[in-house]
């Protein structure tokens, strides 16, 4: 029997050379007369170990990493010589993948299959409990109607993972209760936040989970058309999703009469075009309609007047991909994870200046400190950490004093911070926080949709004022002006782009004023 060798094909594994490794493994095993079956799985999300090569053995899958092409001949040699028992015989040997502490200590519900299965194989998906949630949803439709599905999602306590943390079940209820000829399910796969890659990883490692979640959403509210609005920066996810959708059609999971149930659901991927604001749900809908991505005033809510003016669910990738496990195992099962009003698990993304970056899925409640220092192993540079930005470009920079905050929507709000999409970006002491505050305004200036003045003009002024502060031009007055400007943006903006840009800026004023005012107060940057 050929030996099964797994080499991931997700964006990060590829960015670290996985294709070159796969080619070398293919060539070298042929040379060595080893019969190998190379499977391009998704990544487990242990990005600091990519390319992570796994070999299937009787004991389970054994991991090696990070593997470079020049490591391959030695690896193949070890494999030939020691077969199943090459324990410790290779410097890159990591033991059983499932026992690597970074992975073993996680609570994977949504990402349970990521990196385990071949994302191109529906059979592999089915063999790992795929479509169990859909089966249950179809049974619920027969016994309790669509309301039965919505109730299960409500019961799970799932809140949207895209940032605003709105209860998913309640959104679905509104769409279910709004009568219309046509309704839509729109998956927000715009994932524009820096430091986030959970959506991408899910789509690349386990695309059928998202497809299953969207079918269930369609059944729950009576929508037979779905769109995945995917950012154009993710070509690999585009390729994998389209392939998976094609397979799902061929196997009768999409289209008319899904698995003989008489239900109908169509699904299509639509690409964005490099505009951060198109992650905002109303702007996303405008973009899907073929327009400039200008934010719409709410109300009306998209749940009532969404895509083409019809009732629409807009949910994040992770929200939708969490639905299959909720249906398969029951709302209670999911709800039993977490703390307070934050139920279930949160896929945290460890990024920036971090030694062991990657995806960590855990029940809400873990502290930022444990994530960054236990899982993450501290900074990549080895210098002390200075600031941690959580929740993307509109999220606050947290100083050391706040690193023991548990990951929970309310606990973060109490610190004037946000969890957002769960992106954690670590900065070491070489960072100049004044520059980070300036960048927050600059980013808003570049990405503002332009519809309202506080954001469009405020961000331009914001950059200017911070520049003045940095160059010690009337520092005190300009700092006051900056605070005023933040108030105006926060209170006067139509959406959270302008409304939240003050979060990172204010966190710098509050916690890192030394950097902002350095030469005047005589504070040298602490190294």
């Amino acid at each position, binding site marked *: 029997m050929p030996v099964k060798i797994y080499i991931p094909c997700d964006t990060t594994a590829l*960015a670290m050379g996985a294709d070159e490794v796969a080619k070398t493994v293919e060539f070298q095993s042929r040379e060595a007369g080893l019969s190998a079956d190379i499977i391009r799985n998704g990544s487990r999300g242990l990005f600091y170990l990519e390319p992570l090569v796994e070999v299937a053995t009787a004991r389970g899958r054994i991991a090696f990493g990070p593997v470079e092409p020049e490591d391959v001949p030695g690896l193949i040699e070890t494999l030939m010589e020691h077969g199943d028992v090459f324990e410790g015989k290779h410097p890159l040997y990591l033991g059983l993948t499932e026992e690597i502490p970074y992975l073993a200590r996680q609570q994977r519900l949504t990402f349970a299959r990521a990196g385990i299965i071949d994302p191109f194989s529906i059979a592999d998906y089915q063999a790992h409990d795929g479509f169990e949630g859909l089966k249950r949803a179809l049974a619920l439709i027969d016994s309790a109607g669509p309301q039965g599905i919505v109730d299960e999602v409500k019961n799970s306590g799932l809140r949207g993972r895209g940032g605003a943390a709105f209860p998913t079940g309640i959104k679905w209820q509104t769409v279910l209760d709004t009568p219309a000829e046509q309704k839509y399910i729109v998956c927000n796969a715009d994932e524009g936040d*820096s430091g986030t890659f959970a959506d991408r990883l899910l789509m690349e490692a386990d695309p059928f989970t998202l497809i299953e979640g969207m079918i269930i959403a369609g059944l729950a509210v009576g929508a037979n058309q779905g769109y995945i609005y995917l950012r154009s920066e993710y070509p690999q996810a585009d390729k994998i999703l389209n392939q998976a959708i094609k397979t799902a059609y061929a196997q009768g999971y999409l289209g008319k009469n899904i698995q003989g149930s008489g239900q109908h659901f169509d699904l299509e991927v639509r690409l964005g075009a490099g505009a951060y604001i198109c992650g905002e749900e109303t702007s996303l809908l405008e973009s899907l309609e073929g327009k400039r991505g200008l934010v719409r005033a709410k109300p009306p809510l998209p749940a009532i007047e969404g895509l083409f003016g019809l009732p629409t669910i807009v949910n994040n990738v992770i929200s939708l991909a969490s639905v299959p496990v909720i249906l398969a195992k029951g709302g209670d099962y999911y709800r039993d994870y977490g703390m307070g009003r934050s139920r279930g698990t949160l896929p945290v993304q460890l990024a920036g200046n971090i030694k062991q970056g990657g995806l960590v899925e855990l029940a809400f409640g873990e502290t930022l400190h444990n994530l960054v220092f236990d899982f993450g192993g501290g900074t990549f540079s080895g210098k002390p950490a200075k600031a941690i930005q959580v929740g993307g470009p509109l999220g606050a920079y947290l100083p050391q004093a706040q690193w023991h905050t548990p990951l929970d929507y309310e606990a973060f709000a109490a610190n004037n911070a946000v969890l957002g999409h769960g992106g954690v970006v670590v900065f070491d002491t070489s960072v100049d926080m004044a520059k980070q505050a300036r960048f927050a305004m600059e980013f808003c200036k570049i990405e503002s949709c332009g519809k309202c003045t506080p954001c469009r003009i405020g961000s331009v002024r914001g950059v200017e004022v911070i520049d003045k502060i940095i160059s010690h031009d009337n520092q005190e007055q300009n700092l006051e002006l900056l605070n005023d400007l933040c108030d105006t943006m926060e209170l006067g903006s139509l959406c959270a782009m302008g409304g939240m840009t003050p979060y990172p800026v204010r966190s710098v004023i509050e916690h890192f004023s030394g950097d902002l005012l350095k030469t005047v107060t005589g504070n040298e940057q602490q190294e």
Partner: protein
Amino acid sequence: MTKLSEQQYQVVVKSVADKKALPGALLPILHDIQDQLGYIPKAAIDIIAAGLKQTAAEIYGVISFYHHFRLDKPGNHLVEICRAEACQAMGSEALEQEIKSKLGIDYHQTSKDNNVSLEPVYCLGNCACGPSVKVGERVYGRMSGEKFSQLMDKLSTYVVELGQGENHAS
């Protein structure tokens, strides 16, 4: 406005015809044209507008709103450097300066030899292994000035070879 070549004209007309029945067809049409031609020639705007029964100003307004769409022809390689926070934390600012000076161009410009066009990008989803750079469809992690030079050397050799191949064929 320069006129479309015959081949460009065919691509534009076919894209519009293939996709105009889609709900919200404009972005799929623009993507299709840019994927095939590398950019959206200005002369294509009137054809798209006519096909979708919209005004040229509306089409232009959409193209200009999105950073991804371009109205000018890019060089052989589109290089995008991630400028977002996670990459900043890994020194992307210095990398940007280094790459710009190596190529002798700033963002939104194309090198004199037409080999490279440079664009900023805000996150490629590779934030655990930054700084990140994208060349064409491919993302590269842990990028450094030195690694970038090697990459460019490889890519230019490839283009020269490809160029010769094309000459032979014609």
